């Protein structure tokens, strides 16, 4: 029996590690939209295994060690095989609007990655089912394993490329298989297969199949097709895979929004891709500022036409272009904030000579921190806070980031930035420009609301917007724009053939002069947003451009259901670019999660004998369905909420997922004792537990924003400990309703137990995706309140079940 516990620990660590690793890998080879699909897939694996065990319980119980060892071995093998297979599915998200086969490929990816999680879950499920006498210790090792797995994979990703991290993770279930095989009756055949697998690994066979196959349409893939281009360096890290590319024959000349009246050409550049996209460049700089003259002819240079020797804060410094922009314009000092320390290392160390030691300039101070955290912690005031283009045009244009949380461009963020500017200081944000405008207008709407939140009565007097053919720059002044400043803006724009989209005294004839559109949409939109009927305009606009907030930080979400039929109809008439396909992928994922959950979890359960008293099936089913929704809604909302605090989705998933697993497990283990104690006092245990959940969730709705604000600038380790401390009491409570329900079901009809697991698993699979959709539509707080309603409803059902149940003995 003792051998079981380390085996459980290893399986559990590998499962969570694999889940996090897949999120990373799919963000690299595709885009971020797979992250929540992976959570759904993992849950589906657990759900399907529950049904599988329910159907074959007696056979598996008789061969527990063999079944465990075989499943662990298959987990190890399929981790690698499915990783390789999944990458070979020719899914192209960009082709989704043209080719219905892409939906099939998406489903194939879903099913391929389900397999390893299924085998992992079979191991854990078998242990729970067949070794109930030590269930407490199994729980313990399962949960500790989950926590260790998250730490292990994050550490591994700092040191290893993702495919090598995979090889590390797959050894864990292999060791678990070896441990359990040693006490199995079928140890010889098991060991033969294990030896074969080990031999393949040592021969390096899988490694050849594991190279990351990026989508052909990501920026890195495209750059590497160009003659003589080559990868200079890959740097792996949990915050992203950085790839440095040089293209000597067809140099990178990244200069978004460069005036077509310019005579200046960008110098030689190295491109740095994050996860194969989001290109930033490192400019060759030899100290001669004249070589950077092109920087002065971009829309992003606008604030420098108004400021003399400003003290500048650059948020998202990346390869250093925006720092050079500041230095070129004679900035007195530049504080450069960059989230990824590996990125700054490239500029500061690896390519320091190429970059002209820009980060070593005495005027420049580098802060490897998350932007919001830095600003919240900083006491400094700046003449200019500058946010450049942080994403690629292809990604922005294709709606690929629809589900990405971005806490950089929210109402709260902009208000916070503005409070860190000097009187008369400025915040400047440059964005890619789409037609008809989406993010450009959404940013202006967000800025107006941020100014209003600061008590500014006439935001119109503090804003300026200019546009080139593909970028727009928004300037927000901490104070009213003076007449001489307005004149300077006009001079800057006119001399570079940029159009003005907003100025306090704007005239319509100057809004569509150089870069002509059928209408000056950005000006029209800004005018409407600043007018009395802005709500009606937001309602009537065919894209979703309401301000992004910390509660709904989906800055890149522009999808409106009402627009879908029209844009689908004009798809082949050149209107494909109007479709926000990132959101459509989410819908497709929800549909396939629902179908897969139904066919793979619920349908096979029909073969299990269905015996329970009349009238109890529906309430029992509803109870476990509600719990499945409620638990995952809260968990997913917390993952997304904590991205703000922990700075990156992967950190948030690792901390929040492990936190919920560990503490819900503890709650679950303690539920029996609590129930007995409360029942002796004549109180319903579920009412007390749901009361606890309500207390903590409602408390956190109000408490989390100020707590995040207070501690966001602290070290990662402090923030992780605080996050876990916040999650712990809530998760302990949330771990209880399920076992309490199972206890009640066991009193009513033990035959319903497999159904309870199945229905709960089914709801979890759907909720992982549904929660994201609901958060995009209604915000995190609404998702949390909805989850709370589910818990309350479940507790009411529990009360009716209590009246139904007969005083039969507790389950064995």
């Amino acid at each position, binding site marked *: 029996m003792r051998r079981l516990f380390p085996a459980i620990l290893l399986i559990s660590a590998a499962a969570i590690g694999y889940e996090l690793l897949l999120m990373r890998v799919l963000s690299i080879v595709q885009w971020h939209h797979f992250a929540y699909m992976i959570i759904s897939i993992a849950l589906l694996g657990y759900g399907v295994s529950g049904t599988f065990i329910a159907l074959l319980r007696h056979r598996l119980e008789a061969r527990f060690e063999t079944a465990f060892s075989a499943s662990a071995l298959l987990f190890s093998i399929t981790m690698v095989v499915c990783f390789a297979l999944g990458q070979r599915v020719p899914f192209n998200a*960009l082709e989704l609007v043209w080719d219905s086969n892409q939906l099939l490929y998406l489903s194939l990816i879903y099913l391929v990655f389900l397999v390893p999680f299924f085998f992992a879950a079979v191991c854990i499920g078998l242990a729970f089912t067949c070794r109930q006498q030590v269930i407490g210790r199994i729980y313990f090792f399962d949960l500790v394993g989950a926590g260790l797995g998250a730490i292990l994979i994050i550490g591994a990703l700092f040191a290893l490329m993702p495919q090598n991290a995979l090889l590390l993770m797959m050894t864990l279930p292999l060791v678990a298989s070896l441990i359990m095989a040693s006490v199995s009756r079928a140890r010889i055949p098991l060991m033969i297969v294990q030896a074969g697998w080990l031999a393949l690994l040592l021969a390096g066979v899988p490694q050849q199949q594991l190279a990351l196959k990026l989508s052909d349409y990501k920026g890195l893939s495209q750059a590497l097709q160009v003659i003589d281009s080559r990868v200079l360096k890959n740097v792996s890290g949990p915050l992203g895979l950085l790839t440095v590319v040089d293209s000597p*024959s067809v140099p990178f000349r990244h200069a978004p929004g460069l005036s077509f009246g310019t005579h200046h050409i960008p110098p030689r550049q190295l491109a740095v891709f994050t996860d194969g996209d989001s290109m930033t460049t490192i400019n060759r700089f030899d100290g001669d500022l004249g070589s950077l003259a092109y920087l002065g002819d971009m829309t992003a240079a606008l604030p420098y036409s108004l400021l003399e020797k400003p003290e500048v804060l650059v948020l998202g410094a990346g390869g250093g272009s925006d720092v050079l922009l500041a230095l070129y314009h004679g900035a007195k000092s530049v504080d450069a904030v960059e989230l990824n320390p590996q990125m700054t290392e490239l500029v500061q160390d690896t390519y320091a000579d190429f970059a002209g030691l820009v980060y070593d300039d005495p005027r420049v101070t580098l802060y490897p921190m998350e932007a919001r955290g830095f600003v919240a912690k900083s006491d400094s005031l700046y003449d200019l806070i500058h946010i450049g283009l942080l994403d690629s045009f292809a990604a922005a*244009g294709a709606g690929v980031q629809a589900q990405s949380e971005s806490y950089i461009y929210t109402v709260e963020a902009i208000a916070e930035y503005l409070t860190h500017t000097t009187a008369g200081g400025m915040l400047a944000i440059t964005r890619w420009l789409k037609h008809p405008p989406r993010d450009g207008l959404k940013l202006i709407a967000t800025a107006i609301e941020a100014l209003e939140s600061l008590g500014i009565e006439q935001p119109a007097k503090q804003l300026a917007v200019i546009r080139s053919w593909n970028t727009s720059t928004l300037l927000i002044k901490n104070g009213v724009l003076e007449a001489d400043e307005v004149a300077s803006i006009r001079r800057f724009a006119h001399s570079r053939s940029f159009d003005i989209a907003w100025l306090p005294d704007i005239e319509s004839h100057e809004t569509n002069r150089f870069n002509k*559109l*059928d209408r000056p949409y950005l000006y029209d939109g800004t005018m409407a947003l600043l007018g009395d009927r802005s709500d009606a305009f937001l309602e009537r*606009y065919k894209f979703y451009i309401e301000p992004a907030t910390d509660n709904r930080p989906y800055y890149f979400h522009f999808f409106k259901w009402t627009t879908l039929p029209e844009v689908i109809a004009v798809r082949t008439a050149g209107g494909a*670019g109007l479709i926000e396909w990132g959101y459509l992928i989410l819908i497709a994922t929800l549909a396939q999660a629902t179908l897969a959950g139904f066919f793979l979890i619920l349908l096979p359960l029909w073969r299990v004998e269905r015996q329970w008293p009349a009238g109890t099936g529906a309430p029992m089913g509803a109870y476990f369905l509600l719990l499945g929704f409620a638990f995952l809604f809260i968990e997913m909302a917390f993952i997304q909420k904590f991205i703000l605090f922990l700075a990156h989705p992967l950190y948030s998933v690792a901390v929040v997922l492990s936190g919920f697993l560990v503490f819900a497990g503890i709650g679950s283990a303690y539920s029996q004792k609590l129930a007995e104690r409360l029942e002796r006092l004549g109180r319903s245990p579920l009412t007390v537990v749901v009361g606890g959940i309500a207390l903590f969730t409602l408390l956190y709705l109000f408490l989390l924003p100020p707590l995040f604000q207070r501690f966001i600038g602290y070290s990662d380790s402090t923030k992780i400990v605080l996050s876990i401390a916040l999650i712990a009491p809530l998760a302990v409570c949330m771990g209880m309703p399920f076992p309490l329900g199972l206890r009640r079901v066991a009193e009513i009809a033990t035959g319903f137990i497999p159904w309870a697991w199945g229905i709960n698993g089914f709801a979890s699979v759907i909720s992982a995706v549904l929660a994201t959709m609901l958060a995009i539509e209604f915000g995190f707080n609404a998702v949390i309140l909805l989850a709370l309603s589910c818990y309350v409803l479940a507790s009411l059902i529990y009360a009716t079940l209590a009246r139904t149940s007969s005083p039969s003995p507790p389950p064995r």
Partner: protein
Amino acid sequence: MKRLTYIVLFFAVTGFADESDYTAAREAMVEDVRYYAQLAHDPDAVGLSDAVMTAMGSVERHELVPASQRRYSYENRPLPIGYGQTISQPYIVALMTELIAPDADDIVLEVGTGSGYQAAVLAELVDHVYSIEIISALADRARVDLERLGYENISGKLGDGYYGWEEHAPFDAIVVTAAASHVPPPLIEQLKPGGRMVIPVGGRFLTQTLLLLEKSDTGEIVTRQFGAVRFVPLTGEH
């Protein structure tokens, strides 16, 4: 529309038997493109001239796509051609061609040869097309395909399109099919006064707008952006 759907469905199931099938499909595609151009019943929208439509009906698109995509070659959609590139949607190719207002004695520069389809359409209308490609395999394939199809008025080269093609400059028109963060200043210099440059804006499969840059006789530059389709972003303003 329906006709095209039936033809495409028929060939998707049966495969194309011979050249006459392709001819029928091509005719249907041209009709389809014409239909969409009429659909964009905006007075400001780009109309398609007979000359451009004739050129679209002449170029054998199926000869310029990889064999795996041949059966879809006359569908009005972009297709992958390998190396992370696409052959543009026929409707977009027609609009881009129309926007540069091609004349029979024009010399045109194309930056981004790709499959060679845009160059072939232009070659049907103008005196000579100079085309530059940055992906070696695509440049080779397009050269072979265009030679096989008998286009003698297309010259291609492998290299950096940013600096245009100095020896043959100035150009009456320039078509940039490759993505760019800005309009290369050297290309503007190589455009004749009164010349036009067109650039599609958007991702590989999702063209959002077409950027038309016009250089006046005095050298002044103005750009105009056209939505490929009439789309009013406010409800109730049709």
